[in-house]
């Protein structure tokens, strides 16, 4: 007797049903379609009504204003900007200024946070108490207050440009910011740059060769004299042959302010210091928690293998701690970026200040401008968290291996 093979169930349909409707099956699918339809209808109604009402009140709408001339100046810009450029350029300048303070803030906050966390964990009584006091003081005071403190109390106390503090005759510190000599490229700059790049590549090559020798033959090759020779000798040679790569433009006091040189504005410094010290106090606690979450046996096992304390931390404890640290750390990075919008209080020209501020009130197009601004912050946040997720995924893979 043969057994007839039974018809296999319609796999694809079944899967689809499960995926879309969950346990509720087709009923669930129907409910979801109805829900989506209601959402789309609501969204359509909102957009359509706004359009009609804007039209009847004759309020200008649309994104055409981005091409119009802005007509106002901004005191810090990473790209060339003058008042005769468009609002789109203003948007771009604002985004870059926000990114500048956010990225430097994230790096600085991570470094300070790590140092404070290590301080809190250190066996030294004094160091751990100082680090603890830092965390409790900084994280419990409102951020806006700290920004104003740095701006008005600390940097506001600097002298005016005519009495500025001068270092080495070329660096000036005043209430207009830190003015440093500006490097200006000379004809010898390109060969110099080329020499540096060649030196770096040669050094990396030597390093690779030495490792291969060590692992393959067990031979220790001494490369550091050659590396130093290449890194210093090659650029020096190029400077001798082609002339000096750079000269420095020394700032001079002219009228009310310094002319020449590069300048770091005090608004940037105040915002950066306040944001990074504030966020660092949270990061310190996150890192400390992460390190403490690794079982003590791991440390002891590493030490008993004869590894140094530093090596155990670096090779065994930190990689495991990072798994715990990463998700809350991402939150802090996102917070720092979003908190940078407090810049408006002290006149740092960030996205909110120049675009959702000046541009908004000059064009009066609140819906479009607030919409764009929200979109930009959303994009920055999503990209940050995507990068962190990717890093976490790689970390998880390497730990699993």
């Amino acid at each position: 007797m043969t057994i007839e093979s039974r018809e296999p169930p319609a796999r694809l349909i079944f899967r689809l049903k499960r995926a879309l409707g969950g346990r509720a099956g087709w009923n669930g699918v129907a409910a979801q379609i109805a829900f989506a339809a209601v959402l789309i209808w609501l969204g359509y109604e909102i957009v359509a009504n706004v359009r009609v009402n804007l039209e009847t009140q004759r309020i200008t709408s649309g994104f055409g204003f981005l091409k119009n001339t802005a007509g106002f100046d901004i005191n810090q810009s990473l790209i060339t900007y003058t008042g005769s450029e468009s609002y789109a350029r203003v948007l771009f300048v604002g985004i870059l200024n926000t990114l500048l303070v956010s990225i430097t803030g994230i790096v600085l906050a991570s470094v300070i946070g790590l140092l404070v966390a290590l301080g809190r964990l250190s066996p030294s009584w004094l160091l751990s108490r100082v680090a603890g006091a830092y965390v409790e003081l900084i994280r419990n005071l409102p951020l806006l207050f700290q920004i104003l403190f740095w701006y008005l109390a600390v940097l506001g106390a600097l002298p005016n440009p005519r009495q500025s503090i001068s270092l080495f005759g070329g660096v000036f510190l005043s209430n207009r910011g830190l003015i440093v000599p500006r490097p200006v490229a000379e004809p010898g700059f390109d060969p110099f740059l080329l020499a540096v790049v060649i030196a770096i590549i040669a050094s990396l090559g030597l390093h690779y060769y030495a490792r291969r020798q060590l692992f393959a033959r067990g031979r220790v090759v001494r490369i550091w004299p050659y590396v130093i020779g290449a890194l210093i000798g090659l650029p020096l040679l190029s400077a001798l042959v082609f002339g000096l790569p750079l000269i420095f433009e020394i700032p001079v006091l002219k009228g009310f302010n310094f002319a020449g040189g590069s300048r770091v504005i005090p608004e940037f410094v105040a915002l950066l210091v306040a944001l990074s010290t504030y966020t660092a106090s949270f990061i310190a606690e996150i890192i400390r928690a992460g390190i403490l979450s690794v079982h003590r046996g791991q440390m002891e096992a590493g030490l008993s293998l004869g590894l140094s304390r530093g090596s155990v931390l670096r090779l065994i404890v930190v990689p495991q701690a990072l798994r715990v640290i990463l998700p809350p750390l991402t939150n802090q990075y996102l917070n720092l970026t979003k908190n940078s919008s407090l810049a408006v209080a002290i006149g740092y020209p960030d996205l909110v200040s120049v675009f959702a501020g000046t541009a908004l009130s000059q064009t009066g197009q609140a819906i479009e401008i607030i919409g764009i601004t929200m979109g930009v912050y959303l994009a920055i946040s999503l990209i940050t968290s995507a990068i962190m997720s990717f890093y976490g995924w790689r970390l998880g893979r390497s730990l699993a291996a």
Partner: protein
Amino acid sequence: MKRASLVFTLALAAGLTSHAAVADTLKTIKDRGMVSCGVSEGLAGFSIPDDKGNWTGLDVDICRALAAAIFNDPSKVKFQPLNAKNRFTALQSGEIDVLSRNTTWTLSRDTSLGANFAGVTYYDGQGFLVKKALKVNSALELNSASVCVQTGTTTEQNLADYFKGNNMKYEVIAFSGADETVKAYESGRCDVFTTDVSGLYAERLKLANPADHVVLPEVISKEPLGPMVRHGDDQWFDIVKWTLFAMIDAEELGVTQKNADEMAKSDKPDLKRAFGTDGNLGEQLGLTKDWFGRIIKAVGNYGEAFDRNVGAGSKLQIARGLNNLWNKGGIQYAPPIR
């Protein structure tokens, strides 16, 4: 402030989504029992709370005059302090009925914001405030200076135009609030503080040593300041317009807060028309016959309001200048009540 402007934007979006955008502002005000009036966050002489918390100032008096015309009670005003940035959104979203907040009348604001200017309460212009110690006598000597300015105002563009036009370099530092701007100027972050001249006199009072600072002679722009209403309700637009005109006409007719009752009994035809003892001009506006008397008894005529708030009778001591009546050397002129 950022949060406030976000709230207004959401309110604007929400307000605009409703189908029933009925624009009967007068009825809304009567139902509410209050005029909702957008004012500044504190500008001496124009809109600022006194030590008892009562709002005073020239802009405030417009709001009080409206409340007097509608309710015969100048206290029936709900004041909504707004910064330069979120003022228009508050008006567009219906949060306020009238924006009386030292706002400059410009073409783009008149057209693209969905609002109308109801007249000029104060003819102003942009100027510069500097420390006397700098020994600057003219704005043309300000090359390479750092300038503090409040964002969201016409001043930023005027500033850029003026320095560019005179081939001078400068650094601009823009703050969202007026207080922060003045504080930064006082701390020495900037050499110059710029805003409308009336504002310079008002803000100078807040400085530790007002006598150490001087307003430069150059006036670099025209800044006619006036109240603003939303598009789409012509009756309300007329009421705001004629409330201001009533104050200016009263000065011309010689009607003051004190003699208003007496003048109401006069048999001069123009006074009879204004006070409503002849004809029904007030009712044509949607108000009562005695609207004119109500306004003047509550806040006085334009000259009285000017003197009390910014002129000789105030701390600001600003001369009438352009703001004098047309027949006394100024340019304040109101159409006749007829």
